[in-house]
């Protein structure tokens, strides 16, 4: 996989993960073009797009579009299922996920993605294992959370 984008129906980017090195300018251009093209497509249309020399696979879940770029010889159908599996993971983690969860906790969404896909390839396809890895990471968080000074809380340190 070359990259993955999440954007809203309004065209706002919610998540971006690039597995190929590209310049910022190029990334912005690609994002803009793809968001425009995909938002213009009708619901009944094919979930696949040919774009430059890449294949774009996208799917809409409520107000969010999930969009992946793969190479010509890759399997489009399994890419759709990768998107679906990611949504399932988000759903399980946040408990009935909505766009707001992803907006406000986007770093969590990234952590989940990194446990599922690594370097553009599926890393772990067992839902249980992915969530286990994330939970372990989060446990650390809670340990660290306890000693929190009052001063820090109000931002005076």
């Amino acid at each position, binding site marked *: 996989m070359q990259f993955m984008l999440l954007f809203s129906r309004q065209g706002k980017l919610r998540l971006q993960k690039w597995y190929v090195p590209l*310049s910022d300018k190029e990334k912005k251009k690609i994002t803009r073009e793809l968001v425009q093209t995909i938002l213009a497509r009708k619901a009944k249309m094919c979930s696949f797009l040919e774009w430059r020399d890449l294949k774009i696979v996208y799917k809409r*879940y409520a107000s969010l579009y999930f969009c992946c770029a793969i190479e010509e010889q890759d399997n489009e159908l399994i890419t759709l299922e990768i998107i679906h599996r990611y949504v399932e993971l988000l759903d399980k983690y946040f408990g009935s996920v909505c766009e*707001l969860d992803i907006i406000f906790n986007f770093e969590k969404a990234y952590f989940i993605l990194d446990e599922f896909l690594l370097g553009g390839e599926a*890393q772990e396809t*067992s839902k*249980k294992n992915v969530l286990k890895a994330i939970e372990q990471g989060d446990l650390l968080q809670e340990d660290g959370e306890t000693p929190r000074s009052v001063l*820090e809380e109000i931002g005076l340190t």
Partner: protein
Amino acid sequence: MSDVVEKTLTALPSLLSFDSQPGAAKLSSTSKLASLIRGITELTSKHEEEKLIQQELVAIKDQVSSPNTSMRQMKELMVRAIYCEMLGYEASFCYIHAIKLAQQGTALDKRVGYLAVALFLHESHELLLLLVNTVLKDLQSTNLIEVCMALTIVSQLFPKDMIPAILPLVEEKLTHPKEIIRRKAVLALYKFYLIAPNQVQHIHNKFRKALCDKDPGVMTASLHIYLQMIKENPEGYKDLTGSFVTILKQVVGGKLPMDYNYHSVPSPWLQIQLLRILSLLGKDDQSSSEIMYEVLDESLRRAEMNHNITYAILYECVKCIYTIHPKDELLEKAAKCIGNFILSPKINLKYIGLKALTYVVQQDPKLALQHQMTIIECLDHPDLIIKRETLELLFRITNGKNVTVIVEKLLDFLRTSKDDYTTIDLMGKVAEVAEKYAPDNKWFIATMNTVFSLGGDLMQPDIPNNFLKLISEGFDDGEQDRMLRLFAVDSYVSLLQGEPEKLPQRFLQVISWVLGEYSHLREDLEPATVVRLLAHVLDLKQASSETKSWVLLAMTKLCEGEAAMSVLQGVSETYSSSMDTVLRQRAQELQNLHLNPELWARVLPRDAFTEPLEVDSSLSFLDGYVSEALAAGAAPYKSPHQRQEELAQAKAVSMEPYGLSLPISMSLSSLDGRQSPTLLSMSSGLSGDSTDHSHKAGTTTLKLDKVKRVWGREGYLAQRESAVVEVPSPVHSADQIEEVGISQDPTPPPVADQEKQQLASSLFVGLGSQTSSSLMGKSEPKHQRLRKKAKDPVSSSEISKQTSNSIFPPPISVDNLLCNSNMDPKKSLPSCTQMTESSQGSAAANGTCAAEGEFTEGDVQGPEPSLFRDNRLTIAGSCETEEPVGMKDLCLTSYLPADCIGANHSEFTPLCSSHGVHLSACHVHKDDTLVLLVFISNSSNSDVHQFIVQVDSGDVEVSCLSESPVEELRCHHVEVCQYSLTAKRPSVHLEVSGLVSFNMPDRTPQTTHFSYKLPLPSFIRPLELSTEEYGTMWLAFSHDTKQNLTLVADVQDSLRATLDVLERKLHLHVVAIIGMEGIVACRLLPDQPCLMHCRVHGGTLAVWLRSPVPDLPDCLLYHCQRALQEV
């Protein structure tokens, strides 16, 4: 699934205003990120957003650089910075702090730090170097989570040059008790393999261990590496075919834990990965394919549930079945699958079906016939992507009979296409099929006109180039040529009379060239009329200076007759004062040539194309000039490629902008050369050049070579032809199938359907059995009409017959005669005497020297001339043991040239055989060079003629040592070709490839390819220097690599022993051993030094290699490892 994400943005405002709302609890409502997000949501204009974010960034900047900011706060700041970057605002000041956070934060902060690094930086970002130590530390951490984080970042981005620093630690993780760590380590190695394959070459056996891991996750991860490696070298992994099949069988049979099920399908990702690997292994390999048939059948059978994921697996199965060696039963099932896809009402499946059909249609054209009505429907599908894929399919089934309909469809699509990429792609396809299958001249010209006008200036330059080449070179039939040119002239005159301002530049250039060259063919057309039309083009505002120079060149060819003179006069006056030097030069030429008709007639003779033009591509006429310049102290010539490489080395900066400039400068120089783009057409183009001084002609001939190689139209044709020939003899006739297609429709077809059927019959004509035979029979001459004259005796159609035979030849019984008869007495004498001394020699003379020796990887046998060892020949790899021994080494030793007999020579490796001609090779080590000997033996009973051997390589500089090339090979005779090799650039193995062509006694030409692999150490020679010299050189070299190697164990002085091994096996020179350290030097032929410093440290040998040549240290290190492993 859409109900999962129930809540939408409509709920946003209420959530934002009341924190007590359910769901808001999840959002850390007090955080600054939340207020930032809220702030942005409330804004109405882009401008306001920009202002807010800029403020935010200023605030973040202040805080991150403050020394009082805690890591916890830093984490929060980082998250905000990531958010700003996602919105498209740059926060590069944060990058360094992200690295710091990853370095100094506690576990949780660290996680955000690593995430920020992964999102902010790219692979070659300079700050990434600062991360190396952090990663190193975390890899050694006892905290599993930290190790995981480090491995995660490494699998995403890591500086290529620093891989050796962490590689041992990552490798170590492959045996970690936790599966998650093992899995991530495998993926990290996968990443390393992608960016620096040389670095991980030594751990291939560890990949095998990962493949056998008891955890399915680790095993799945290892398949990524295998897929990649098998893609690059399917031959090397054939032995694993059985294992992959077994794994797939288990997966399909549901033997994996339930966790890995996805919608009750067992591990679909794993299945697909395995299917992809199998298709690579089974391609063109019957025996491997046979192992797979059963499991493929099983996969097809199991994947019957009605879910997307099973379709994904089915699609991969179908692709695999059509890729590997065919089996009828499976093909039938796969075809049924494709049919189901295409007929599916689900649009995604329909698309996949079309894609699969496109993939298989050349093998199985009758499948397209079966679905013709569906294809026609898809052609009018409202979704462009479906339409586009259908056109792709049509393009694949184009033939002489349906070309007009298909091209029309393609052009229709082009007219509406707004996407540049699609336009360029389709343009090339239309031009390709038009040129190949054009039914008549008029259609061809009209089609190309549409292509040129639609394609505009996006078009790849090879389309107009090929077109002009075709027009100028013509066909075998002179009358046809004339007609085609006349059509072109007519059509262009009327285009110019119309609205030339609407035509794209490239088209104007084509038009002006054709008019300049051929408008005289139309006798009723006054040159003055053409000149006036062209002058009008010059006045166009949008005409680029390149176009103008084409027009001026065309005018120069037309300066004839009184009426044109006045126009030409005006034009040449206007442009002789142009600011553009090229135009000024053209104008000068125009002026001078039209004042001097005699010179004009000589410079631009008409019908120059009828005589083939001799081009001295070696530029020998410049030799004097060059040697004078060299004598005067000029630097020797370096090719642009070489210059660039050196520049890159000198500056070590990204070469991207330079890369781009290359084609531009080429097109500029072609302008300089005052050439039409059809450098090959060379009729008037080159003749116009003769006013140039010789140097310029030189540059054009150079390019000519290039153009010919890349865009050889015949090559294209040959490819397509072979594709057509592949059509198997189909079962049904076209008519039958059409009948079936129609009779499937129970009701009498309405009018619209009838139209579709009509379209179908015009589209799919020529795909059935009768027609397919006529495709090769009748329509062949038709498309030959548009093929250029065969000027080259070794034309591409012959090349297409080549038998690419680089694999081991089948066993052949070599005549005993080979050994003693027809030998050159001079060559054979010394070795014959040796032969009698050896007991094995007599065995060999009887032709039974196919001894079963062990495979030895070293390419040089001991210091003694090991002529009579029972060496089994090998092709590197692991499949050598089953190879039959076809050649007789011993026989060949007798042909060793006199000066090679004393030297170390490698085993004889058979290269290829064809029609009784066998090629073998070995290499001989000499001090200053590596000599490659190619033995050509003719075991047939007849002589072969016009024998040509060419040896070439990208890695190696090859020069021929034999005085006279072998031209004839008498029967039962052996000839030896000698080549001297030096390395161009280092690589673990350097490959030499070659081509043999000869004429059989019955005059049929034969061509065979071969390749020969040489390990790097063959090119390594000791470099003798003093310790002082070593010291100065060491400091001067920039490319280095470090690694720990194993010491030779169980000896007193293990350093000495280890270095001895390296000295012996790799021909290194040990400069000095001082205590626990040693310094070693060698050179890569011809004279690229590489230095090595070793130190015994904690039971291992820490080596550090340095060289001015990139990759040399890495490659040499690899061989050092190998050499020590073998001990």
